[in-house]
């Protein structure tokens, strides 16, 4: 077996608290309460351990990370350790003063979510009146503070037809990067799948628009596009492969190979309060369970792409087949692929659960 490489990125989910209620939220359906969150000193220790382990990029996320009053302190420790700091935010809890404090603490990059290009539709999706206008104001302040700006949008049936307008908005706001990612059906998004699943024709049209925009904006704005899983014939290398590049720490300190991994039954995930990040990354059963290719069933085991897609997403295999150790059913070679094909054509429905 080849040596285990150190992780490149840490996703720190500081809290599950969030003022928005987006129906595609990838947080677990059972949200962690404030009382269960790690304290400041523990997060600061996690930052030092991550840097020592070889992490280069820190993604401060949630929920809404700005809901933590100690965000500046945690960020400052990370910056002192040389981590490149990314704040993944809804923006609605930030103002100019807080942004300046974060910049002074060493923040490099703000990744600001938008829900749509038009305020009314955006606020409806976010379930928060006035959110869109506040986001637009913040985008300008991020640039004035000298920070890098990414705009990101999660795509679904309710905003996919506005993809061209969202690209134009990112240009207008001066974002250096736009991330447009189709909904991943975990957590709240899986419950609301019938309301979110786009029609195949809509998906095709959006692909065409994104490809054109990429060409037009080359050298000015980077567009990262996450294709829709269910409409694909080969799975994505989820997280770059289980336990290969990323680790995720939940609000209560559970260390996960991806943010949805806790849905997999029969797994034991260690906590930062009981073990070091290094012990968990290299030695824990959970990180080694689906690492590499040894765990793979057919058709993955003998597939030429086994070290390209690493068998796809374990949580998706679980959600659609009931077994996390099967081939990701998004793959057309999977014996379970019919479940994906059926979901694309299932009758569309209403939002069942606004994130709370």
């Amino acid at each position, binding site marked *: 077996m080849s040596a285990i490489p*150190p992780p*490149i990125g840490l996703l720190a989910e500081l809290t599950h608290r969030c003022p928005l209620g987006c129906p595609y939220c990838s947080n677990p359906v059972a949200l962690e309460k404030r009382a269960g969150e790690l304290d400041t000193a523990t997060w600061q220790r996690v930052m030092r351990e991550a840097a020592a*382990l*070889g992490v*280069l*990029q820190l993604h401060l996320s949630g929920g809404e990370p700005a809901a933590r009053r100690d965000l500046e302190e945690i960020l400052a420790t990370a910056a002192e350790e*040389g981590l*490149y700091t*990314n704040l993944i935010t809804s923006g609605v809890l930030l103002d100019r003063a807080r942004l300046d404090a974060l910049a002074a603490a060493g923040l*490099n*990059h703000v*990744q600001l979510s938008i829900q749509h290009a038009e305020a009314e539709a955006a606020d409806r999706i976010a379930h928060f009146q006035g959110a869109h206008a506040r986001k637009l104001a913040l985008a300008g302040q991020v640039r004035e503070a*000298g*920070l*890098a700006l*990414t705009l990101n949008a999660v795509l679904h049936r309710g905003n996919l037809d506005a993809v061209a307008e969202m690209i134009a908005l990112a240009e207008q706001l001066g974002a*250096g*990067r736009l*991330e447009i990612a189709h909904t991943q059906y975990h957590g709240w998004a899986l419950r609301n799948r019938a309301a979110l699943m786009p029609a195949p024709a809509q998906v095709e049209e959006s692909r065409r628009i994104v490809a054109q925009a990429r060409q037009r904006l080359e*050298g000015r704005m*980077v567009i*990262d596009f996450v294709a829709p899983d269910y409409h694909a014939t080969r799975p994505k290398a989820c997280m770059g492969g289980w336990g290969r590049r990323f680790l995720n720490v939940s609000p209560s300190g559970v260390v996960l190979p991806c943010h949805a991994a806790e849905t997999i039954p029969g797994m034991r995930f260690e906590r930062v309060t009981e073990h070091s990040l290094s012990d968990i990354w290299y030695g824990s059963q959970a990180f080694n369970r689906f690492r590499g290719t040894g765990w793979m069933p057919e058709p993955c085991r003998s597939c030429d792409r086994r070290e390209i897609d690493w068998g796809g997403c374990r949580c998706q295999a679980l959600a659609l087949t009931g077994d996390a150790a099967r081939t990701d059913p998004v793959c057309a070679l999977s014996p379970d692929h019919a479940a994906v094909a059926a979901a694309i054509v299932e009758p569309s429905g209403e939002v069942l659960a606004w994130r709370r």
Partner: protein
Amino acid sequence: MSAVPSLAPQVRLRHDAARGQWVLLAPERVVVLDEIAHAILSRLDGRTGIDEIATALAREYEAPVAEIAADVREALEDLQRKGLVRL
């Protein structure tokens, strides 16, 4: 006077001790640098021009200035296209 190159805003050059390499860090990007790229980028200070950098490198590597200058320009232009360097 030659152009004065600099790293783009919020692009960081740092040593990656865990992997024994130098990297450029930018939003959602980690670019691993070879020895030459590192030698060039570690000389960007917002004051030193491309010609001066090439002269210093030519002396250090005992190579013809013209050849080194062309390499330096090409490397910086490539990084400029990727949004990592400003010229």
